[in-house]
């Protein structure tokens, strides 16, 4: 039967994605300035002390894991946001996570805080912005989604204005480049400790969304229908926002502003496995991870200098997305 065929397809897709993920993760250890041949990677990783191991473990591993985790988190957050706003053009920063995190980071950099302080500040400001956004709209009884998107846009504008002001006032020799660099998004400075702190909230966010996958499905039909199906749309959305925000805030605070993953990957994933959240979330997670890891590999190996990751994802992602849009137009309802 047709439906069974689809389930089989989902299993196969997940198997394939897992295999690709593992290959990419191992293969990425071979990418970088210090040359390590592909067949030397596994022996070096498990073969005891060597200069290769030091490079692989201290420099490449945190970066590879961070790229995968951030990509996955942004993609999962994006698919959740797109569903709860029943709008396929929504990205995870719709409620101001990224803009808030940017302001938090800029403030911490201006205050001369160490790297962990910048990340913590970005995390707190990112979540804080979403909380403010939600509280503003909380009392609106009907048509909450439109109000949320509007409030989010306003808060983004406000946070961006703050960042612009800080950049304007910043010392052009050290603070300004630091802020600019952070805003471009980069994984060059990720360490195992920060990654260890950022992954638990991501896992919590993912588990929350996965646990409410059937409610998320109903929420994509709109508030009225969700309610008539027995779901309190406001409460459900509040929990979903919390989960998606945990994911995107933890991603942004270690990687800076990496656009596009959260907007694009959910579309591609939906195209592969369908819109049901039970399938979409795991597929998005792996695809987002693979995509960002690949982008980061390209960012650090294409030119002799490193290309900012945000530039890389946009340069590859935007044309692909444009192609996807023309395809959808051809499908005609």
């Amino acid at each position: 039967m047709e439906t069974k065929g689809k389930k089989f397809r989902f299993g196969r897709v997940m198997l394939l994605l897992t295999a690709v993920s593992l290959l990419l993760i191992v293969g990425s250890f071979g990418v970088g300035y210090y040359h390590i041949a592909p067949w030397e990677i596994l022996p070096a990783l498990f073969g005891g002390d060597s200069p290769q191991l030091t490079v692989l473990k201290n420099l490449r591993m945190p970066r590879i894991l961070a790229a995968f985790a951030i990509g996955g988190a942004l993609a999962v957050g994006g698919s959740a946001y797109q569903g709860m706003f029943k709008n396929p053009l929504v990205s995870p920063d719709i409620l101001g996570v990224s803009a808030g995190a940017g302001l938090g980071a800029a403030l911490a950099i201006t205050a001369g805080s160490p790297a962990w302080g910048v990340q913590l500040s970005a995390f707190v400001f990112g979540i804080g912005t979403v909380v403010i956004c939600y509280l503003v709209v909380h009392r609106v009884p009907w048509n909450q989604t439109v109000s949320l998107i509007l409030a989010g846009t306003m808060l983004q504008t406000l946070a961006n204005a703050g960042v612009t002001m800080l950049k304007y006032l910043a010392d052009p020799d050290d603070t300004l480049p630091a802020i600019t660099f952070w805003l471009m998004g980069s994984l060059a400075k990720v360490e195992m400790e920060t990654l260890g702190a950022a992954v638990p909230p991501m896992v919590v966010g993912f588990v929350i969304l996965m646990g409410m996958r059937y409610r998320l499905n109903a929420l994509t039909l709109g508030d009225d229908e969700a309610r008539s199906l027995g779901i309190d749309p406001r409460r459900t959305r509040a929990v979903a926002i919390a989960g998606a925000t945990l994911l995107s805030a933890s991603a942004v605070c270690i990687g800076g502003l990496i656009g596009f993953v959260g907007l694009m990957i959910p579309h591609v994933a939906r195209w592969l496995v369908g819109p049901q959240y039970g399938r979409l979330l795991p597929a998005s997670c792996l695809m987002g991870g693979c995509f960002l890891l690949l982008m980061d590999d390209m960012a650090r190996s294409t030119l002799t200098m490193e290309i900012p990751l945000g530039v890389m994802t946009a340069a590859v992602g935007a044309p692909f997305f444009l192609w996807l849009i023309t395809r959808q137009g051809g499908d005609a309802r």
Partner: protein
Amino acid sequence: MKLDVQHLTGGYGRRTALEDVSFSLETGKVLWVLGPNGSGKSTLFRTLLGLQPRKGGQVLLDGQDTGRWKASEMARYFSYIPQSHTPVFDYPVEEVVLMGRVCHLKPLQSPGKADRELAMKALEQMGGLHLAGRPYTALSGGERQLVLIARALCQQARFVVMDEPASDLDYARSLAVWRAVRALTRQGCGVMLSSHAPENPLEREDRLLLLREGKMVAWGTPDQVLTPEALEAAYGVPMEILEAVDHAGRKRRICVARE
């Protein structure tokens, strides 16, 4: 089970789109809400279901007011089929029907095998089994209506509320919807549905509610409500009732404009 709606009043802000509407409906029966566009049919349904603010009156289920009920509680007694229905994402039909089970799940629970079987059974009853694997967005208007009726069936609510289920369907497809409505009543559901036309496939035990500008014009059996005077008051057009006998010897009343 009996539904009693008493003096229901509703609307957004200061505007009152529905004023002092009262009627009752028992499970197994059909209530037709008739009236021209803008007469408050959708507002009545949405207010009754708690989808928009209630300004006054009561909705009683066997004497219990549903005003403070949670969405999950409401959904066990009422299922709703909204008017135009175009979701953004292309869920397979099977999943759309399965969404009717959400109100029966505990917070972190997923639908199980029994739920899936129920969904497929509902789809089969509506003659839509062949649609199960297709994307809902690719269906025609008539097929979507049947899928949503299957979802209502799968929800196992005692009352089904349908907002103009046949308004954009062709003749044969609307007949399929009417058949589905009767199938629902045979299963013991009370069906509430609206129509902007005065002429509908009524049966003797059906109840009619005639609305105009958010107010009740008439309520009762077809014989009581379908009078030239009441219809003219609702539609603002002179009307007459023709009587005829069909092939089975049933007396039929047909509403037409008097021109």
